């Protein structure tokens, strides 16, 4: 069912959720940079549409540092304790569709035979309210990986920005409708006239602070989708036999081996397990890790199967576009473009795959 909601009312809703003690995450501007971060109030929410947040909402479902359990060391005795950081109910507001899609993708690996209960619990407690995209930048390539600016996968509620600050609300899941039930003010949407017959703009909503929305909002039908950057079939055809292809060293020669692509990517999910503590007490925690780092596959004997940086870049491309889809089904990539957006030397997935597709007959 779809209703409509003014941006101002959404702001009030966000403030309600925060007041009810829920952790609300959304795009906000920090030092001039658009990042998903926890919102202290609705005023922090930044609905700029022609810029994509430089990180992803992955941290809500899969935090960069998460305590697995605690340990207390005694003499010939050890006590393991449940990690006491409670997992609070989370709401993500104005997520991009290419972020929301990470849930259905990561569910596969985190439930492959062994159920990762902490991930699953966060997943249950998280409601994702997505804002369909009407703009894209040079790095977006969702359309090249089978996704779209209004791809509903993973979203509990899909918002479509209409003109004059009105949002069309489509609740896609039970969790989503519970969140928005009875809270939509159903203002008549001037341009499309599709809003349900709600009463006129009531006094208090009129003078609410209107959140900053980019002026030129066009209706979602003529929203622009990014052009196709590469032919996915050609890429997968190349990957099927191209592991030893001589061009890999050239394709990734400028890669510096940092983790900016992996850590801002919605679907990269590799992690490290470390013990942290001093003396008799500590925690065993899980931290983000990335196949781009040298120690990731370093054996105790000193042997490293992937000693060269281009081997590591090749592994990242293979894991996303061949290994994961073959083993679990979906691509391990939603086309958000953050890897290129954040790469200090302009690499990331799209440029490499575009180069591959261009040179594959």
């Amino acid at each position, binding site marked *: 069912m779809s209703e409509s909601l003014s941006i101002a009312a959404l702001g009030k809703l966000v403030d309600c959720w925060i007041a009810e003690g829920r952790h609300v995450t959304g795009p906000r501007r920090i030092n001039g*940079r658009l*990042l998903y971060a926890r919102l202290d109030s609705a005023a922090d929410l930044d609905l700029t549409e022609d810029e994509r947040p430089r990180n992803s909402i992955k941290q809500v479902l899969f935090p960069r540092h998460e305590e697995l359990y605690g340990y207390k060391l005694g003499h010939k005795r050890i006590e393991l304790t449940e990690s006491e950081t409670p997992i609070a109910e989370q709401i993500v507001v104005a997520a991009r569709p290419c972020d929301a899609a990470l849930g259905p993708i990561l569910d596969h690996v985190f439930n492959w035979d062994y159920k990762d209960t902490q991930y699953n619990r966060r997943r249950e407690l998280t409601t994702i309210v997505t804002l369909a995209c009407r703009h894209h930048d040079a790095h977006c390539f969702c359309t090249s990986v089978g996704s779209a600016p209004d791809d509903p996968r993973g979203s509990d509620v899909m918002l479509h920005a209409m003109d004059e600050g009105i949002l069309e609300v489509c609740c896609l899941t039970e969790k989503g409708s519970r969140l928005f039930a009875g809270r939509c003010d159903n203002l008549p949407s001037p341009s499309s006239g599709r809003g349900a017959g709600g009463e006129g703009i009531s006094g208090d909503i009129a003078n609410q602070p209107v959140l900053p929305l980019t002026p030129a909002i066009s209706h979602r039908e003529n929203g622009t989708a990014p052009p196709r950057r590469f032919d996915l079939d050609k890429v997968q055809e190349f990957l099927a036999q191209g592991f030893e292809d001589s061009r890999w060293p050239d394709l990734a020669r400028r890669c510096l081996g940092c*983790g900016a692509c992996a850590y801002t990517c919605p679907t990269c999910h590799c992690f490290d397990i470390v013990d*942290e503590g001093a003396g008799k007490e500590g925690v065993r925690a899980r931290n*983000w890790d990335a196949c781009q780092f040298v120690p990731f596959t370093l054996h105790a004997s000193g042997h490293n199967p992937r000693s060269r*940086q281009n081997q590591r870049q090749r592994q990242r491309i293979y894991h996303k576009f061949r290994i994961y889809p073959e083993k679990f089904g979906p691509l391990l990539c939603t086309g958000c473009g953050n890897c290129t957006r954040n790469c200090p*030397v302009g690499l990331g997935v799209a440029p490499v795959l575009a180069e591959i597709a*261009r040179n594959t007959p």
Partner: protein
Amino acid sequence: MIATLRETCRQLLSDGKVDVVIGYGHDAAADGAEDAPVYPVFITKPEDAGRLVWNDRCHANLAVYLKHEEIRSLGRAAIIVKGCDQRSLVVLEKESQLDRSKIYVIGIACDGLDRPKCRTCDVHEPRGADVIIGHKAAGTGYPCAGGVPSANGTQGLPDTLPDDRYAELRAFLARPSAERLAYWRQELARCVKCYACRQVCPMCYCRRCIVDKNRPQIISTSATLKGNFAWHITRAFHLAGRCVGCEECSRACPMGIDLRLLNLSVAQAAEENFAFRAGDDPAAEPVIGSYAIQDKEDFIR
């Protein structure tokens, strides 16, 4: 200017003087496109020299590649450097990481890429290069890049050169220490430990970084505030008297953390205590690697 750059490199490659030119370029297919993304390229064939460009998006400090085995395996290298990048070569040579005689340095005159460092730049024309592309503009005393259009029409040259590289740092240090700690607490809370600040830095050439060593694990690898403070204190201090201020670490940070103040604080300490500025004098001993009997300080009782 771009034409002379491409011609110089084509000549070097065809003469066999160098096997690879490390420069700035873009996709062959995107030549001429106004906002085509610029990134480091490694030209090995003379006919590819056409991919080289020079514009106001050539930020990378290419000296970082001289330590990579994948580049060294290509043979003798020519490297295109701006004035700030060229300083890194001086430091790397002094720390015996590169043999200056084995690389061909193409200096490129640059009047600023709209970065904070450019406002107080005094090396518009790189020193110690084998050849310089672009030349000193007559009369103004500052080299002009010739070819980099700038908004205000004066070739983007700063009209007055603020004499103090550390003005911003002094303002920051004037704030109370609790406020400074709170600032870093708020900034470093965003750090996700992707180590882009380490990987883009030509000075970070350790085969295995201290943060990747676990006996002992003196720096926590977790992206908690504790781990982030320990990491950024270590990274900044390892640049004392070595950081040339190319500001690639701040540009590369995906979470928008401005690390300049930390680099400036150790640079200022080296300059005010030991009159040492990284990359200035090829003969000067590295400040942290050497000592002087007459070093004077006022805090050791």
